[in-house]
């Protein structure tokens, strides 16, 4: 529960700062506005579906009005022609509001370095969390959501990039073993061939 500290001992109350309490409440009830424009949208649907189940984080309710939502998910390529619409939607959202940039195109334009594409939505609106990937897997999406929840809980407003995460202890060794078993008896492939 962030930096809420138990102050009452066995007497059954605790003390906290108001911001911490609000952050704790907000991060578990994020209403989202999906602004899905491109192929990343498919991966967003996968993350929102039952298998990956974004409802575990209290962020499953899409609001199709920016006035009712807390998080703007910008999912996919934004063209220059679309940029005014995106900016207007962002401005319609009520404070407090957060923006997640989903995928490479929304974050920096991706490989669309041309006349038609906005090179990253941070050129027109502030972004809280960047999720890289083309498209990112649902695991990465949930990771990004957890990163945002972490930020909200701490009241941190700096932009954040989702970084690669380490595999759990022992997993790289296990993968190496499986690889050796699979390659057993096969001739090694030299890079020259």
């Amino acid at each position, binding site marked *: 529960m962030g930096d809420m500290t138990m102050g009452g001992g066995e007497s059954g109350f605790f003390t906290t700062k108001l911001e911490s309490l609000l952050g704790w409440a907000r991060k578990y009830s994020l209403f989202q506005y999906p602004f899905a424009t491109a192929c990343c949208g498919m991966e967003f649907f996968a993350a929102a579906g039952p298998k990956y189940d974004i409802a575990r984080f209290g962020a499953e309710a899409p609001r199709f009005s920016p006035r009712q939502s807390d998080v703007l998910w910008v999912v996919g390529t934004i063209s*220059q*022609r679309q*940029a*005014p619409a995106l*900016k207007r939607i962002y401005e319609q959202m009520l404070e407090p509001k957060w923006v997640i940039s989903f995928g490479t195109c929304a*974050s*920096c*334009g991706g490989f669309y*370095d*041309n*006349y*038609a*594409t*906005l*090179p*990253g939505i*941070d*050129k*027109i*609106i*502030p972004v809280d969390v*960047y999720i890289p990937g083309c498209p990112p897997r649902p695991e990465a999406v949930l990771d990004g959501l957890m*990163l945002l929840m*972490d*930020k909200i809980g701490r009241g*941190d407003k*700096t*932009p*954040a*990039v989702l*970084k*690669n*995460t*380490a*595999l759990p202890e022992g997993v*790289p060794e296990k*993968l*190496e073993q499986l*690889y050796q078993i699979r390659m057993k008896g096969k001739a090694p492939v030299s890079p020259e061939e």
Partner: protein
Amino acid sequence: MSKLLLDRLKAQFGDKVLETSSFRGDEVALLDKSVWKAAATFLRDDPRCACDYFVDLSVVDFPDEDEEKGRFSVYLIVYSTTKKHRVRIKTRLFEAAPELDSVADVYVGANWGEREAFDMFGVKFAGHPDLRRILMYEEFVGYPLRKDYPANKTQPLVEYREGTFDKLGPFLPDEGMPFDRAPVDPKSSSH
């Protein structure tokens, strides 16, 4: 197979058919721009051509060939759903006067094709019912698929925010916020 189409065009338009080629079923005729609409109408209405299906209309830009042949090569591909043959007719336009008769009232599908050609290359189609940009916005200056348009020149509609940006994001890799997990060692990652 559909050499027939080229022969029909040559018989109908004579020396207005500047050159023809036929390669593995791709029949191409280069026409003088004065017979452009007449040729499209002929291909649609002649019972032995019967090209009732519009496939594509677009432009190729040859900026080096403006002096001898004309910079823009406009092409129209039509197909016959009954005779199962296909033909491409082309014409060349000079940069000084990129104007051509519209075939939007011959083939309805050419309406948006001609709008795209206007949007991307600035070719003007006389007689088109609604010649506006179709993909880019009205405020856009120039024609982005012309080869002399800078490939990455943007014309933003929304003013960019204050600050220094480049393509790699507004911050360095180790900036941003701390997140309580160990970074990946790229040498040990086998996934």
